[in-house]
């Protein structure tokens, strides 16, 4: 069963002009947000995006953009208290 979070919040964008259809974004996305159709990437379902940023990081053509960060309430609280970006303060574990 696919678990989906809030709708219409992801900051993911795809610039089809720059996309070469190399498929790297489909390789790195942990939620199968992308697929390649007619030699170009398309976003299947933006609501599945967790804004991890793997696609942007691995796009050699600067075609994918997303404001990435940790989707973690504790991280946001911690960041707010310290006046920094949301950050995990984990010492290692299942997660943060």
């Amino acid at each position: 069963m696919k678990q989906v979070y809030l709708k219409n919040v992801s900051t993911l964008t795809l610039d089809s002009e720059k996309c070469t259809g190399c498929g790297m974004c489909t390789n790195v996305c942990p939620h199968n947000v992308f697929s390649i159709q007619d030699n170009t990437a398309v976003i299947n379902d933006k609501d599945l995006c967790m804004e991890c940023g793997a696609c942007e990081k691995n796009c050699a053509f600067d075609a994918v953009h997303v404001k990435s960060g940790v989707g973690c309430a504790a991280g946001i609280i911690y960041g707010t208290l310290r006046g920094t970006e949301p950050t995990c303060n984990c010492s290692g574990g299942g997660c943060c």
Partner: protein
Amino acid sequence: MWYYAHMSIMKTSSKLSLIDYIGNFNVRWGINRGSYRVNPGLYSLGTPSEESPVLVTANYKLSFDMLRKSLQGYSVWILVLDTKGINVWCAAGKGTFGTVELLHQIQSTDLNNVVSHRKLVLPQLGAIGIAAHEVKKISGFQVIYGPVKASDIPEFFENNFKVTKGMREVQFTLWDRLVLTPIELVHSIIPMFIISLVLSAIYGFSNLMSILFYLFIAVLAGAVITPALLPFIPSRSFSLKGALVGAILSLFTFLWITPSNILLFISLISMMTVISSFLAMNFTGSSTYTSLSGVKKEMSRAVPMQFGFLVMGVILFIINRFMGV
């Protein structure tokens, strides 16, 4: 043999010892977590040759152990990055499992002269920190993103280093969620005791045990039951899921133990609901599908509500104590 010149190569095996299993259990419960690290560098598993694959991982022992456990019968190289003892996914998010550290380890282990090929297999979730095209440009090594789960590696090998769609997707199964709950529970223990002490200071220390019991139910609701039943609880918002479970569970509790009056009843239910909601909201950090924008949106609605109900609960609690209603 040819690689004897590389004295820095460490040996490991696919067999986990009893001590490894005890360590893995401890780390889930937060015992000695910080010291659970592996030395970064290059390891040989089995009897690898210069043509054997190179797998890259983090120096969090649980990541390292899961990887080598899945490699039974294979001979490979394992390159361990220094992620300060943090797992691949979190470390990649922070950038410690990153392009710079990967390039550094390639160089310091003299990997160029250990293997004849120029391919590295990375865990897919490491992609958040690694720019494959930059690694290729600078070191000549091609990054192949392997499966999300180490247990899929044998199939990935048999499949000629191709990943199937199912191997790409992050799951969040009941078991995935359950193994994360002990640490949530452990983190809640100290705050739970502090709140109980404060509340029983107001209400009289003879009530410490019952207050502890109520708070424990709330913690159980938010940190264990909500995560376990996550996909089955209505609403997309974690804090609402937690509030719902907290409210239901506290109502059930008071079916058995009736509080002395209605004010105390409302006060305890509000506080327990808030605690459960807050802990469930924190589970967004452990989940595998929440986004930063989403959690921000959720919190902008949930935190004021939680604060409101908490204040209401505390005020009713104090009124009940001092007005003798």
